[in-house]
């Protein structure tokens, strides 16, 4: 049988065998526990991405990555969120909703800019219809570049954030 083929029961096994991911998950869990106690809640806001970061974020919850079991949840309202995860180069049409979402999130709060668009290197950054990057509208704590970043890169970015919070406090 080929490496490409995963038997259903082997799916999780193969995933557990991935040493890098295993280590990342372990560190993430430990980091979240020491920084937040139990878990962090993330509200995702799309302000003009090409849709691929959203696909990768949904993929983070699939059985391969399954980040919910390590203490990360995606929530329905900014009012329930510790972290706002913003994608896209912030279109003019989305500036007000983004500001409102930021104001609605309770303090302490952190912002992640995800993807090249949100970080300021996006392809449409010079267009008349966009602002260019998230940090021109709301303060950003961590940037995760990529077009789009892979699930592993997103997990690394989340780890960077929790480590930062651990170091700097609320």
């Amino acid at each position, binding site marked *: 049988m080929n490496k*490409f083929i*995963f038997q259903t029961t082997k799916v999780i096994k193969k995933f557990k065998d991935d040493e890098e991911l295993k280590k990342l998950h372990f560190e993430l869990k430990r980091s979240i526990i020491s920084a937040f106690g139990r878990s962090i809640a993330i509200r995702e806001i*799309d302000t*003009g991405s*090409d849709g691929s970061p959203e696909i990768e974020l949904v993929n983070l919850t*699939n*059985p391969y990555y399954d980040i919910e079991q390590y203490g990360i949840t995606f929530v329905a309202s900014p009012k329930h969120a510790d972290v706002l995860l913003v994608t896209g180069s912030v279109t003019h049409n*989305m500036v007000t909703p983004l500001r409102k979402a930021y104001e609605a999130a309770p303090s302490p709060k952190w912002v992640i800019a995800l993807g090249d668009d949100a970080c300021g290197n996006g392809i449409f950054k010079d*267009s008349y*219809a966009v602002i260019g990057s998230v940090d021109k509208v709301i303060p950003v704590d961590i940037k995760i570049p990529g077009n789009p970043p892979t699930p592993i890169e997103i997990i690394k970015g989340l780890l960077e954030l929790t480590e930062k919070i651990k170091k700097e406090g609320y």
Partner: protein
Amino acid sequence: MSYKNQLKQLFPSIIYNEENDSEEYATVTSKEILEISKILKELQFHLILEFGIENFKNYKGITLVYVFEKTDSKKLLIVQSKVDNDIESIAPIFPTAALYEREIQDGFGIEFKQLCDSRKLFLHEHYPKGFHPLKKSFINAHIKLKDKVLLSEEYIFKKIKGEGVYQIPVGPIHAGIIAPGHFRFNVLGETILNLEIRHFWKHRGVEKYAENKSVEEGILFIESICGDETVANALAYCMAIEKVSNIKIPERAEYLRVLFAEMERIYSLLGDIAGMIIDVAYPSGASQFFNLREEILRCDEKLTGSRFCKGAIIIGGVSKDVHSKTLKELEDYMDYFSSQFTSSFLRILENASVMDRFETTGIINEKLVELLNLTGPLARASGKNKDERVSHPYSKIYTKLMDPNKILNQGDVLARFRIKASTITNSAKIIMKIIKCMPDGTSSANYALKDGCSFSIVESSRGQNILYINIKNKKIDRLKIRTASFCNWCAIEHAVMGNIVPDFPLINKSLNLSYESNDL
């Protein structure tokens, strides 16, 4: 008598321009466009695209281009009309024109007479008055917005009045990991009386941004329009340019392109299927499909170096050849995929609570399909065989290797669920066949670019994507892209009527339309 002669008799001023294998061009005066539309409607044409171009073919002003399609004809009829004085809206004849004409009003600042809805479309209320980005006089740059939006300038939604009727505003930011859009429901009890969608929150100015860019650069932002239509849009773009410049791509490149396109169709539709099952609260059933999607994305990474096949398709072929060993691995995997997919799918169909939610929910009437130019799996679930791979075969591989599509008549969520599943199985079969008869040779051709304009149509995972490009001095002069989502979004407003509010997410997911490729 052919329709061309028939039209010529009724309207002597009509001029027939050049004609090629896929398009026929005609020029008419702006006064006659409404009357001609009426005749075309009788001749069973339907409108698939309408847009404007400034400074086109020695005319300094704005030229409107109407693209009509006839059900049994492989050729498109392209009607061009100069805007010299008042122009009448053709929305009373072809309802989809209302959206295109609102788009043209925002973009070029021309006004249509008797346009039923003249609210702003992609420029929301904070854009300055008199700002029309698609005009050539505006050079793309960051602009200053209004400081304050007056109450009178705000967007007005339809409101249904009566005892017990109330409104539910949803969005632009939604509860899930999803793009923004505003939905305004008018509800009585739990039943939806009316839904109005307001989009273009993600308007990034793609069409203007493309202007004066080099043709090679263009592919970068075509790929950035929509993540899960990357290959479809890149393919449409390259095909249009290859048609203009008369570039012949190697056979191996054509096979690889179709391979990538079908891989994309599979992962995109797998997401739809998994999402529908999630929305009826059955996550364990959905995870099977999420697993398969992750595996397909990993296959894509092995094939092209990008999980979304970004950068895989270039003008003249594909950027990187695929090693035969990788193709062999993919063949083995697809074998496993097909059996795994079928068993997971059958398990869902056996689940009574899932079927209970799927059946008779969100019905889209067959009559709407041609009226609103609905395409893709959603049209095939409403009794019409709409598939560009069949009706405008842009690659001979499809004519040779594709099995006939499954068609269902019910038009409900269950029908769409089944059609999407059968599309996936069909695509998997195409991939297996492609790998078996993959020809040897080079994977890209050398080319020399020429000026000119052209259309191309492809079938993305959501339906018909049509692209127009005009190249002047080896640079893009005008790029217009209309994805399947632009038309298919209208279907949701009809599909939800009479359903209960909690079924809306399910109906929405069963269509799974793209926000980014609608908003551009």
